[in-house]
């Protein structure tokens, strides 16, 4: 190979390699993700709402229910995910058990108080493999005498390995810690040592299925994905603190929100994962409105979870949430409410008014549908949550339900942090 020795040659060579690098970086940046997503594979999956109630008689208002969780690996390499259930099931302070029922009953005397408890498990997924489990049952490696009704993990080295020898060995998906249960699931792509990895290869869905002898009702939503920032764009250290979004350190855009290094010329972006959205947008029926097709009253439940989560110290984070509500006359009303760890509400309960006086009520708004913009109030205190994720469910009186993912808008300069327990499992 000819070697350039002259100064001009060195300059030309440097310029040439520089242009190649810039080209490569530009191409890479075109594939960089800016935001969380529910329609693309990602490195963190958030299932904002899981609900289980197989108790007899059921405590939950709409009868027996379980949640089917489906996850698949979209790449042709095996992947491991570390998952965390967040148990937000409320309990009576008098020790009489959970109080998911409506209206809440904690007799003889007691209050119904939400609790937040994390429990985790690891599951290995082979190339392109889809897996599924019931939240009430979890899943283990399939055995010969298993109940065929309960999903299990089919590939094992000693039984049936995959075509390339890959298997689900070492996986044991725990069931949710109690029944009835309500809470969240977060799953994070990790390597075999439970170190987070920058692989956007996970996609997932949850189906909430209610079944009685005389009825069935199914609703489904996509898991919300938080993509890792890939390759040249990230300051990736693989430690137990996952940094979701943030601002530029130094450079021309210092202090401004960033999702990758290109947003910070002359500086660095601290983010390892994409930023959570600044605003969530929900289009919805106002509570109590009549569905024009079925002529049944519609109510909407909103579930919100903070992007930040501290699984290491189990300290629930509180976020103040601002709601801006627009009706079809372009009239705007607003309210706010703190959300700690996990919160599910009927939207007409958000402002704690009586049903027909809530700003989320059709009787107050006057129109059938509205648009609500949901914003977590951010500050610099890491003990506070910042951004939020969520899912909405529509219920028709004495009939079916439907879930829908929320829309996202914008990113914010404050990072959100997910703290994992130290030392892996």
């Amino acid at each position, binding site marked *: 190979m000819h070697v350039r020795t002259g100064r001009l*040659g060195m300059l030309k060579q440097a310029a040439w390699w520089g242009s190649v690098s810039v080209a490569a970086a530009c191409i890479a940046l075109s594939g960089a993700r800016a935001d969380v997503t529910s329609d693309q594979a990602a490195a963190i999956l958030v299932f904002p709402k899981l609900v289980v109630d197989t108790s007899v008689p059921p405590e939950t208002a709409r009868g027996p229910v379980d949640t089917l969780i489906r996850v698949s690996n979209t790449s042709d390499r095996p992947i491991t995910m570390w998952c965390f259930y967040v148990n937000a099931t409320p309990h009576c302070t008098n020790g009489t058990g959970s109080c998911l029922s409506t209206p809440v009953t904690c007799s003889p005397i007691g209050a119904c108080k939400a609790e937040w408890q994390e429990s985790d498990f690891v599951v290995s997924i082979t190339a392109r493999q889809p897996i599924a489990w019931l939240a009430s049952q979890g899943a283990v490696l399939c055995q010969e005498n298993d109940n065929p009704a309960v999903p299990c993990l089919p590939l094992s080295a000693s039984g049936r390995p995959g075509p390339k020898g890959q298997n689900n060995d070492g996986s044991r998906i725990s069931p949710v810690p109690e029944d009835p249960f309500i809470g969240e699931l977060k799953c994070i792509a990790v390597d075999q040592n439970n170190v987070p990895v920058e692989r956007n290869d996970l996609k997932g869905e949850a189906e909430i299925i209610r079944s009685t002898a005389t009825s*069935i009702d199914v609703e489904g939503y996509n898991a919300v994905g938080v993509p890792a920032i890939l390759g040249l764009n990230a300051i990736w250290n693989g430690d137990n603190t996952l940094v979701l979004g943030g601002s530029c350190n130094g450079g021309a855009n210092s202090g401004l929100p960033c999702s990758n290094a290109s947003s910070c010329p002359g500086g660095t972006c601290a983010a390892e994962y994409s930023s959570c959205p600044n605003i969530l947008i929900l289009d919805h029926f106002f509570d109590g409105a009549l569905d024009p*097709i079925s002529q049944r009253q519609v109510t909407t439940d909103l579930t919100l979870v903070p992007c930040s989560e501290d699984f290491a110290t189990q300290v629930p984070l509180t976020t103040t949430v601002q709601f801006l509500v627009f009706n*079809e006359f372009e009239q705007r009303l607003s309210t706010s409410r703190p959300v700690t760890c996990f919160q599910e509400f009927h939207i007409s309960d958000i402002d704690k008014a009586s049903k027909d006086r809530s700003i989320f009520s059709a009787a107050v*708004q006057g129109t059938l549908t509205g648009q609500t913009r949901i914003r977590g109030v951010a500050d610099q205190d890491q003990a506070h949550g910042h951004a939020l994720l969520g899912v909405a469910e529509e219920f028709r009186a004495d*009939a079916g339900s439907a879930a829908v993912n929320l*829309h996202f808008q914008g990113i914010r300069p404050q990072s959100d942090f997910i703290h994992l327990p130290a030392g892996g499992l």
Partner: protein
Amino acid sequence: MKGSASGVIARWGVAMSIVLAVTAVRAPGDVTTERSSSILIFPKVQFDSTGVQTGAPVDTIIQISNTSNSMVFVHCFYVNAVPEDPSLPPGILNPPQCQEIDFSIWLTKQQPTHWVVSSGRRLDQTDKSCTKDFRGCSGAGFDPGLIPPVSDPFAGELKCIEVDSSGAPSKGNHLKGEVTLVTPAGDASKYNAIGVLGINSDQGSNNDNTLCLGGGRSSQCPSGAEYNACPETVILNHFAENATDPVVEELDNGQSRVATQLTLVPCREDFENQIPAKVTVQFQITNEFEELFSTSTTVTCWSNLTLGAIARVFDVGFLGTRFAQTRMTAATDDESGFVGVAEEFHRQGPAAAPLVSRAALNLHGEGVRPNSDTIVLPEAP
């Protein structure tokens, strides 16, 4: 000073390796179901008062909102894809009509609006608002324009495109939308409209009637991409066809089976010449044993098929596991890209008269298509 030929080749080889290594990182699909966009695609819109085409009566509610603080104008197109003879099932001898009907609406700052496709929406300032004692206020609010009712039966798609006050395409990315499919008994499924983001750049637009989704410069797209590209691969996680519902079994509520309807629409559309786009879709199915199967089908203008009707390979008896991941791509880059939505039907009880519930799920996208897909709008007045 000139390098030797071998040096140049080696240097370019290393350089290309770097570029390829970097580009091997997969680009995301650029259409979105969660961000405000300039084009909204509602792939599955149905109205069938008797169930002659859909098997059971169903109607659809469309919701669209303006997420900006300025007024937005929207040009919408229904594509009716019921068969030429709506009383018979679709097939080779009974092809889809692919008939387009369009209308315009406008939305004020942050305004949400809705309509039921069977009735449309009229401009009527006397519509009564909801009160504590009156809940059926479907017409209340600023009427967004005259929205025609669809024919009965109707099965097809709705595309809405953000335009300016003159009707020229505008890339403000101000629209979001949802679809709710509802039966008269109140069973409902809901999905987010698929959004195609407009690219706001100095070069990337000529505001003509040919909208260019992705790709580079070409005779049809002299300015290159004006909107984001459709995904190269569309991914669906699903039940194997006719698999049992594990929750129904767990709760011991009798027999059950799950069917999945997959609705696909080409990204290309020629509303000016009414030429339906056609795409051959390749399916790669991976079951829980990581075994790979494949099949294909052709979509002309719009397709709504159960997985079992596409090919027997989707059936649980053939697939061997209850769940699968299916990756869909266009057979060649020259064909149209496509987007879609899935709807699951969970049946419980005896096969002759089951209880049914439906749930819709947006599909995932991966990668971007290398070639442009174009939407040709009718000439403005």
